[in-house]
């Protein structure tokens, strides 16, 4: 399999799983390619789930470090994408537990850095608040489907839920989000929204 990615020209055409196996065998080019493919999706994964961009950066780094550390034990039994987001989810949950623990016992609250662009803040805040109102598991399913583009089966495997539950919860989340967005639009006028989106 590593021969498939031994040639730099073939690296870009290799599958994720082939690249990971090649990296486990010592090919740094393979991991560079994987990193190039997933750096933005993974960062987006955390960025949409965390208000603080610095924390999203930290967890992104932690995820790729976990992949690097576990590379020697990697077995291509599932899609690399599922494997990657499974690690990302575990890291995210651990981070949430730690943050909740700090908030409970130390009263520490995470700082939220203001986004650089006000127009980005409008859209982000608008959608973030709407999504935050969804039930927790529904929200996770919706985000995994809409942004990580995972299939129902992959989501079911990641969240350890029956696939029919994923279907019904995803439908419920979409309906709830539709209602939320519809209800919120009058507060944020369409003109403001269009203007802010144009400036992005």
């Amino acid at each position: 399999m590593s021969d498939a990615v031994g040639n730099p020209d073939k690296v870009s055409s290799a599958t994720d799983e082939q690249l990971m196996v090649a990296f486990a065998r010592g090919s740094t080019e393979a991991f560079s390619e994987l990193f190039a493919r997933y750096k933005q999706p993974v960062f987006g994964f955390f960025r949409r789930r965390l208000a603080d961009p610095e924390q999203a950066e930290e967890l992104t780094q932690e995820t790729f470090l976990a992949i690097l550390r576990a590379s020697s034990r990697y077995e291509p039994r599932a899609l690399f994408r599922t494997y990657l987001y499974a690690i990302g989810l575990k890291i995210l949950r651990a981070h949430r537990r730690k943050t909740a623990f700090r908030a409970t016992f130390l009263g520490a609250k995470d700082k939220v850095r203001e986004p650089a662009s006000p127009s980005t803040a409008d859209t982000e805040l608008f959608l973030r608040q709407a999504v935050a109102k969804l039930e927790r598991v529904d929200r996770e399913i919706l985000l995994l489907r809409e942004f990580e583009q995972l299939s129902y089966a992959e989501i079911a495997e990641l969240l350890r839920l029956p696939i029919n539950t994923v279907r019904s919860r995803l439908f419920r989340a979409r309906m709830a989000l539709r209602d939320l967005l519809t209800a919120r639009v009058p507060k944020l006028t369409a003109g403001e929204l269009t203007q802010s989106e144009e400036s992005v």
Partner: protein
Amino acid sequence: MNIAAHPVAPEEIMVFLDGELSAAEAQAVSAHIEGCADCAKIVEQSRSTSQALARWNVEAIPVKLEKSIADSMTKAGSRLDLGKPNLFIRSSFWNWKQWAVAGGGAVATLLCVIAISVSTLQRSPQATMDERVAHDGAQQSVRDNLGAGTIGKLEVPRKLTNTDKHSIPSMGVQLTRGYSNAPAPQASPSVINGQPTTDQLSNNAPMIARTVSLSIVVKDFTASRSLLDSVLARHHGYFAQLNINTPENAGRSLQASLRIPAPELSSALADLRNLGRVDNESQSGEEVTQQHTDLLARLKTSRETEERFRAILAQRTGKLADVLQVEEEIARVRGDIERMEAEQKDLEHRVNFATVELQLTEEYRAQLNPPAASVSTRIYNAFVKGYHDASETVLGIVLFFAENGPTLLTWVAILALPAILVWRRYRKALATL
């Protein structure tokens, strides 16, 4: 939406839009949507929701982060240490199942430790009491009545008779290993069959109840056992108690409480020491002269009182109630006299017959081919032992909770409310993330 008119459920339409239906199902749903305005509206709404979400863009990954990960990748490629992962966010740890297993294991271990501790504590109160008595005995001021040259090195005797319950001070002297005991004070030779003679009492000779503790290691246990019998016979002593243990894969041992006439104690001890190597020897003597004198005086007084009552009963006449009262007094005094007489006999017996607490231990020699028990016997014994151990463990746990349950429940009741409040606060904080 009427399900009868719409054989395709709205959820099915969503699945269709996500491309998760099979080709045949997708074709059927697609055909239905084309001819159904309501379903087309659902499609439109679903698409608009997805499009709204698609506007949620995030900034590009920072360059510094990219560089940091690239450095880590280089390190990993060079087999350099990437550092330990954060324990809290280790990818393969800290899910609820592992928490449950680890917590359950910890609780089980704790319960086992507690159960073992409880059962051990239950078995040892007698041993603790013995040690405490021995310790108290050692604390007593030592008055050496054993003659010149008897003090080698004072130690806490391993075994002492319970002499400190009397008010009369006791004497405790222990001889270190290999110490040759000096001649002990001889009880009066006029003691006959355990009864003190008038010489002993009238001469104001001290009455001493002697106790010796002797631990001897022997090579030939059987021969030593026979010799012990002959020593006792020769010195007119007897076994007050005898206990022989024959454990498997260990030397046999004998624990005996010997009673030896006080005058013959020294010679008997000399004979006993010849049985083997003296591992430990200690002697103590309790002076009971004062106790005995007091007892005799009280006995004499009580007898005189009894005589007076009897005289009153015989010579005087009176009411029936008075007669009955006198008879009750006579009965009470008689009871006191009998009790004191028994006490006197016991005291004199202790003086006349020294107590030797003897422990014989065989030097164990492992057998080259020990006769092993049969497989079935060993399996049976293992089951029995396992059953007993399990019973003891369960009993220990039950006893622990019986003893500490109320306290634990009290603490649970005290801590429950704060714990619930903290837990709710934690869940609330978690839900907002």
